[in-house]
C-alpha cells in the first residue's frame, strides 16, 4: 500500500518531467553519421586534365556536365577539392597553366578563372566581353611567353583574347570583323609566335587568320570558298591541316593552310569505303595524322598520308571512344581507343604515326550495366624500366568514371548518381530462412573487445583513441545495413533513376548501391530517355510472395510525341521483369488509386492525341477500371498558353484496331488565364500516397474546425508575364503573383489570392489541407512565405456530442466533389531570409505526428521548420487558451534556428529535390535530399515519442527495477514480522 501510493505520483512526476522538455532537434556531435549518410559526386565528366608532376600528389582535374570542377586523387578516386559553378555558368573548357593553376573558361566563354591546383582556391577571375555570341575555345600553350608572362589564348564571343596566366590581365584582344565568322580551331604551332584561327563563314567559306601571338597583330587573312558548303565539325590532323566534311556528309575535305595558302583536297567517302551508306559525321579530335568518321553505326579510322591522301586503317561496328593525342616523347604522340564488345572492353594505346603497332592492348571485363564507353582520357607514366605505362580514364554510358591501369580497374565512381531525376522507395525482403542476411556474427574476442570499449566509454575511462573506436563501431553497426526489413521500417531501398537512364537501389542504412540496372535497349528504341518512376506493385496484404516492382517510363527520343517505353523492374533483385515498347507516346501518367488482386497498381497513360491507355492490360484490371469508369478524370496544364483543362473518359477508342484498353476522352472544363496579365509558373498537387489521420482540427476551447481534405486540389501560381526576366527587370507596381486553389475534377476555383508586388520563382508544397509557397516580395526586397489553410464550412455545425458518440453523423461517408463545398480559407505571410531551391514536408506512416517543412536553402542545406510557425491562426498576442494549444506569437519573419539544419555541417551541393518516406514507426520519417551530392537522414518531427532514444540508459532502468523489487521484498518481510508481533502481543 505504501509503495503504491508513492509510486503513482512518482510515475506521474516522471511523465510530466519528460513532456515538459522543449523539443530539441539538433544532434550531438557523436550522433553524426549514425543515422545519416552523405555521398559526394561530380557528374558526367566532360573533360579531364592530368596533373602528374613528380612532386605533389597525382591528380586529375575534371569538368563535368553538372558544372563541377574537381580535383580527384588518381590513386583512389577521392575528391581533393570541388567547385560547383552555377547552373547558367556552363564550363566550356579546362586546362592547367604553369603546372600549378587550373584554368577554366565558362559561361559561354565570358568568364575565365584560375584556381590554385593543390587546394582549389580561386586565384583570379576575368570577364571577357565580345561583340557576339560564338563558340568558345580555350588554349593554354606551354611555351608561349610574352615578356616572361605565360599566355592563355581564349576565343570567345567573336573575339580573340590573350590573357596573362599570372594575374588574369588581358594582354591584347582582336576582333574578327566578319559578321558570320565561326571559329572552329585555334592553333598555336609549337615553337612559333603565330596563332592560327580557322573557321567557316557563311556556310561555304573557309577562313584562316594568322595572328602574331605577341601583340595580336593580324599578319595574314585568307579565305577560300567551297561551293557545296561544310558541316560544322573539323578534325585537326596536323598544325597546318584540318579535315572537314561537306554539307551532304559524303565528301571528305582536307584543308591545308600551309604558309597562308588555303587548298582543298576532295575525297568522296565512297572511294575509301565501298559499302558506306548514309551521311557521315566527323568526330572532333586532335590526333596527328588520324581522324575518325562515323556513318550509321560504323566507326572508320582514316589515316592521312601525304598531302590530302587518305587511307582507311580500321573499320569497326563496335562502339568506340578515342582520346586526344598525348605527347610521350620527342616527336611521338600516343592516343587511346576503347571498344565495347559484349561483356568486355578492349583497350588499345597506339602511336599516332604507326597504326599497326600497339603500345598497349588489353581486354577488361566490364559490368554490362555500365553500357558503352563514351569518353576516354589518356595519361602516361614512366615505369622503373623506363618504358611507358598508361592509365586511362573512361567515362561510361551510365556516367560512371573508371581509372584503368595495368589491365585492371583501379577505381570507379558512380557519378551517374549526381543527376537523379526521380526517386521512389521500396521495402526490403522480410527476414526469413534462406534470405541472405549481411554477416552479423564476428568472433567472440572482437565481441568482448567491443563491449569492453563500450563499458569504458560508459564509465568515462576511455581515451580519445578509444572514443574514436567506439564511434566508428557505432557507425558501422551491421544492424542498420542488413538486407532485410526491420521492425521500425528504417531499412528500405531508395530506387533512383538517373539522367543516364540507369536505376540504382541505395540502401538507406549506409547508402551503398545494392543493385543497378541500365535501361534495356531494344531494336525499336536505341536510346531510351528515362522520365519517371512509379511504384508498380507493392505487395503488403495479398501476393506477399511476389517481389515489389517499379515502373520506369521512358521515351524513345527527345520530342514529346516519341513513342514511350515501359520497363518493370523488380526492386529486390534489379532484374527487368518486362519491357514494353509502346506504339503511342506518353504525355501524362496517372497512377490510379486502385490495385488488382496481385496488388499491381492501375495506371492510366495519356498519349499526345489525348487517348487514355490502361495498364496493366489484363481483364481483371479492365473490370476494376470499368467499375470506376465514370469517376475517373484527368487534367492537363498547358503552361505555355496558360490553360488548365479538365477531361473525362468517354468511350473506347475508335480506330482500325480494336483496343479495349484505350479510351477516348472529352474536355469537361478549362480555366484560361489571360495571357497579358498572368503566366503559370508553378503547379503543385497533393502527394498521392500521403496519409491523413483526421479531418478535424481541435482548436482552443475544445472547438472543432473541419479540414477540407481533397486529393483533387491543385495549387497554381501565376505571375505577370513581365516578371519572367531577372530581378530588377520590373517595378513592384507592375508585378503581381496570383495563387489559386483549383478543384481538378470540376474545375472550380476554391480560392484565389493576389500578392501585389510579388514575383517568382515560386516553390510550393501541398499537404493535407494547406499549401505553403515561397516567392519574392519586390516592395520589401525580401523573400516571403505564405500559408493557405482550407477548411470545410459545411461540416462546421457537426457539434452535437450525442450524435458523434453514437456515430449518427455523415462525416466519414463518401462525398462527391460535384456537391458544392463551402470552404473558407485562412492565410498568413511571413518574411523568410533565404531563397529556396526546394520545399518538402515530412510524411509519416499514419499522419499523426506533427509536420515539419524541409526547406532546401540556397546554401545547399536542408532546414527543418516546424509547421507551427506557418499557422494562419498565429496572432501577436495569443490568448491563454491559444498558447496552451501551442500557437506561437506572430512575428514578421520565420526564425532560422541553426540547430534545425538537418544536414548539420554538410552541404548537398547542387540541391534539386527533397523526398520524404514514412518509416513504419509513426514518429519517424526518412529524408533523402539529392543534387550533385546525396544526403539521407531520419527525422522525428515531434521527437521519438514512440520509442526509446538511443541514449536511453537501460542500465539505470534495470538498477531501478532491481532496487524497487528489493525494496518490496524487504518491506513485505518487515510488515509480516510486525504483524506477527502484533498478533502475539
Amino acid at each position: 500500500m505504501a509503495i503504491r501510493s508513492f509510486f503513482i505520483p512518482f510515475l506521474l512526476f516522471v511523465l510530466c518531467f519528460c513532456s515538459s522538455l522543449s523539443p530539441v532537434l539538433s544532434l550531438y556531435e557523436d550522433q553524426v553519421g549514425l543515422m545519416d549518410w552523405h555521398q559526394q559526386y561530380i557528374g558526367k565528366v566532360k573533360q579531364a586534365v592530368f596533373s602528374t608532376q613528380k612532386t605533389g600528389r597525382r591528380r586529375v582535374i575534371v569538368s563535368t556536365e553538372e558544372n563541377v570542377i574537381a580535383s580527384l586523387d588518381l590513386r583512389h578516386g577521392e575528391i581533393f577539392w570541388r567547385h560547383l559553378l552555377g547552373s547558367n555558368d556552363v564550363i566550356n573548357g579546362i586546362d592547367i597553366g604553369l603546372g600549378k593553376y587550373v584554368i577554366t573558361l565558362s559561361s559561354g566563354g565570358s568568364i575565365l578563372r584560375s584556381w590554385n591546383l593543390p587546394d582549389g582556391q580561386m586565384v583570379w577571375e576575368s570577364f571577357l566581353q565580345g561583340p557576339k555570341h560564338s563558340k568558345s575555345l580555350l588554349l593554354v600553350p606551354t611555351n608561349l611567353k610574352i615578356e616572361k608572362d605565360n599566355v592563355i589564348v581564349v576565343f570567345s564571343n567573336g573575339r580573340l583574347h590573350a590573357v596573362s596566366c599570372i594575374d588574369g590581365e588581358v594582354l591584347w584582344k582582336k576582333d574578327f570583323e566578319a559578321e558570320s565568322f565561326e571559329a572552329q580551331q585555334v592553333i598555336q604551332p609549337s615553337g612559333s609566335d603565330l596563332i592560327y584561327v580557322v573557321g567557316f563563314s557563311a556556310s561555304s567559306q573557309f577562313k584562316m587568320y594568322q595572328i602574331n601571338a605577341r601583340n595580336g597583330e593580324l599578319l595574314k587573312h585568307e579565305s577560300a570558298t567551297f561551293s557545296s558548303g561544310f558541316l560544322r565539325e573539323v578534325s585537326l590532323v596536323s598544325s597546318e591541316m584540318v579535315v572537314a566534311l561537306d554539307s551532304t556528309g559524303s565528301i571528305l575535305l582536307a584543308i591545308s593552310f600551309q604558309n597562308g595558302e588555303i587548298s582543298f583536297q576532295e575525297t568522296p567517302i565512297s572511294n575509301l569505303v565501298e559499302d558506306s551508306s548514309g551521311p557521315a559525321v566527323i568526330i572532333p579530335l586532335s590526333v596527328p595524322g588520324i581522324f575518325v568518321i562515323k556513318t550509321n553505326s560504323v566507326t572508320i579510322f582514316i589515316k592521312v598520308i601525304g598531302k590530302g591522301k587518305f587511307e582507311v586503317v580500321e573499320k569497326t561496328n563496335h562502339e568506340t571512344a578515342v582520346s586526344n593525342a598525348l605527347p610521350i616523347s620527342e616527336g611521338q604522340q600516343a592516343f587511346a581507343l576503347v571498344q565495347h564488345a559484349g561483356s568486355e572492353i578492349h583497350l588499345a594505346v597506339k602511336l599516332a604515326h604507326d597504326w599497326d603497332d600497339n603500345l598497349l592492348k588489353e581486354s577488361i571485363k566490364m559490368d554490362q550495366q555500365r553500357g558503352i564507353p563514351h569518353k576516354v582520357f589518356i595519361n602516361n607514366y614512366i615505369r622503373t624500366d623506363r618504358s611507358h605505362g598508361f592509365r586511362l580514364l573512361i567515362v561510361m554510358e551510365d556516367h560512371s568514371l573508371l581509372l584503368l591501369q595495368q589491365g585492371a580497374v583501379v577505381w570507379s565512381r558512380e557519378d551517374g548518381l549526381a543527376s537523379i531525376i526521380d526517386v521512389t522507395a521500396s521495402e526490403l525482403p522480410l527476414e526469413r530462412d534462406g534470405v541472405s542476411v549481411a554477416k552479423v556474427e564476428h568472433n567472440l574476442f572482437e565481441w568482448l573487445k567491443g563491449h569492453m570499449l563500450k563499458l569504458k566509454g560508459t564509465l568515462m575511462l576511455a581515451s580519445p583513441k578509444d572514443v574514436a573506436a567506439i564511434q566508428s563501431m557505432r557507425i558501422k553497426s551491421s544492424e542498420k545495413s542488413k538486407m532485410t526489413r526491420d521492425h521500425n521500417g528504417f531499412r528500405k531501398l531508395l530506387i533512383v533513376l538517373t539522367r543516364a537512364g540507369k536505376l540504382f537501389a541505395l540502401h538507406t542504412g549506409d547508402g551503398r548501391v545494392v543493385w543497378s540496372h541500365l535501361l534495356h535497349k531494344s531494336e525499336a528504341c536505341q536510346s531510351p530517355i528515362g522520365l519517371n518512376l512509379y511504384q508498380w506493385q507493392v505487395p503488403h496484404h495479398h501476393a506477399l510472395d511476389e517481389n515489389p516492382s517499379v515502373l520506369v517510363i521512358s521515351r524513345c527520343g527527345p520530342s514529346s510525341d516519341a513513342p514511350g517505353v515501359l520497363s518493370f523492374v523488380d526492386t529486390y533483385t534489379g532484374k527487368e521483369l518486362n519491357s514494353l515498347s509502346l506504339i503511342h507516346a506518353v504525355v501524362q501518367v496517372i497512377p490510379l488509386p486502385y490495385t488488382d488482386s496481385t496488388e499491381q497498381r492501375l495506371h492510366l497513360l495519356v498519349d499526345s492525341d489525348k487517348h487514355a491507355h490502361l495498364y496493366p492490360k489484363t481483364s481483371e484490371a479492365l473490370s476494376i477500371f470499368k467499375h470506376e469508369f465514370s469517376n475517373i478524370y484527368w487534367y492537363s496544364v498547358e503552361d505555355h498558353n496558360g490553360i488548365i483543362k479538365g477531361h473525362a473518359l468517354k468511350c473506347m477508342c475508335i480506330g482500325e484496331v480494336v483496343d479495349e484498353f484505350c479510351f477516348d476522352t472529352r474536355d469537361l472544363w478549362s480555366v484560361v488565364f489571360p495571357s497579358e496579365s498572368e503566366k503559370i509558373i508553378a503547379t503543385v498537387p497533393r502527394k498521392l500516397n500521403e496519409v491523413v489521420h483526421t479531418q478535424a482540427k481541435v482548436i482552443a476551447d475544445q472547438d472543432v474546425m473541419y479540414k477540407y481534405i481533397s486529393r483533387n486540389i491543385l495549387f497554381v501560381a501565376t505571375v505577370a508575364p513581365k516578371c519572367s526576366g531577372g530581378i530588377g527587370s520590373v517595378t513592384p507596381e507592375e508585378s503581381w503573383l496570383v495563387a489559386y486553389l483549383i478543384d481538378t475534377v470540376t474545375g472550380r476555383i476554391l480560392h484565389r489570392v493576389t500578392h501585389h508586388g510579388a514575383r517568382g520563382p515560386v516553390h510550393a508544397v501541398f499537404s493535407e489541407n494547406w499549401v505553403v509557397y515561397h516567392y519574392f516580395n519586390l516592395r520589401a526586397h525580401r523573400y516571403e512565405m505564405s500559408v493557405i489553410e482550407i477548411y470545410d464550412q459545411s461540416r462546421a455545425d457537426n457539434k452535437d456530442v450525442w450524435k458523434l458518440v453514437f456515430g449518427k453523423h455523415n462525416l466519414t461517408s463518401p462525398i462527391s466533389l460535384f456537391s458544392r463545398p463551402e470552404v473558407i480559407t485562412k492565410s498568413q505571410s511571413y518574411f523568410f531570409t533565404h531563397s529556396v531551391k526546394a520545399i518538402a514536408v515530412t510524411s509519416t506512416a499514419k499522419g499523426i505526428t506533427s509536420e515539419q517543412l524541409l526547406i532546401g536553402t540556397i546554401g545547399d542545406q536542408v532546414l527543418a521548420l516546424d509547421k507551427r510557425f506557418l499557422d494562419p491562426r498565429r496572432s501577436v498576442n495569443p490568448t491563454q487558451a491559444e498558447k496552451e494549444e501551442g500557437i506561437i506569437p506572430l512575428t514578421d519573419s520565420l526564425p532560422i534556428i541553426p540547430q534545425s539544419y538537418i544536414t548539420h555541417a554538410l552541404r548537398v551541393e547542387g540541391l534539386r529535390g527533397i523526398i520524404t518516406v514514412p518509416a513504419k514507426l509513426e514518429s519517424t520519417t526518412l529524408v533523402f535530399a539529392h543534387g550533385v551530392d546525396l544526403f539521407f537522414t531520419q527525422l522525428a518531427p515531434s521527437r521519438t515519442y514512440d520509442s526509446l532514444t538511443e541514449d536511453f540508459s537501460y542500465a539505470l532502468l534495470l538498477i531501478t527495477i532491481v532496487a524497487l523489487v528489493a525494496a518490496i521484498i524487504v518491506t513485505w518481510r518487515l510488515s509480516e514480522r510486525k504483524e506477527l508481533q502484533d498478533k502475539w502481543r
Partner: protein
Amino acid sequence: MEKGKGVMGSGRRWAVDFSDNSTAPFSRDIPNPLGFTRASVDQDDSTVSRQKKDAESNWKAQKAWEVAQAPFKNLLMMGFMMWMAGNTVHLFSIGITFSALWQPISALQGVGKVFEPYKDSKVELLGPKLLFIALYLGGLALGVWKLNTLGLLPTHASDWVSSLPPAQEVEYSGGGIPL
C-alpha cells in the same frame, strides 16, 4: 480509522473473549448452560436493562448522526484544495482530483461497515446512512466537475472527432504538366 476497522473487522480467525459477561446478556446464538433458563433472570432485571438499552440506543443513534455528518468537513476541505489547485492539468491538480474521486468511492463501498457498530434493532440507521451517502455523492460530483473543468471528460465534440478519418471522395483526378 483504518487500523480500528481492521481490528473490528473479520481480520482475525478466532478470539477468546476473557471479559466478564456475567451481567450482560449473551447473544442468542450461544446455547444456554444445562439447567439454566434465561427468561427468569431477564424478567428479574427487565426494567434496569431496558433503561440501559434505551440509553445505549440513544447514544448509538447520536453517534451514527455524527458519523454521517463527518464527510461534510471533508467536502469543504476538498473544495478548498480544488480551488487551490487551479484549472490547468499538472501533477498537483490531477492528484487532488483523483483523490477526490477515489475517497467517495471507497467510502461508499464501506458504508455498511462504518455504521456496523451502531447497528441495533432499535436504532433507525437509514437517515444517517442516506445523509452519509448524499454527502459522499456530493464529493464525487465535485470530483467529476473538477475533472471536467480540467478538460479530462469527453463532453465536447472535439473529443469525438479528433480521430475521425477524412471522408472518401468518389471522384479521382490526376495529371499535371505534360512530361
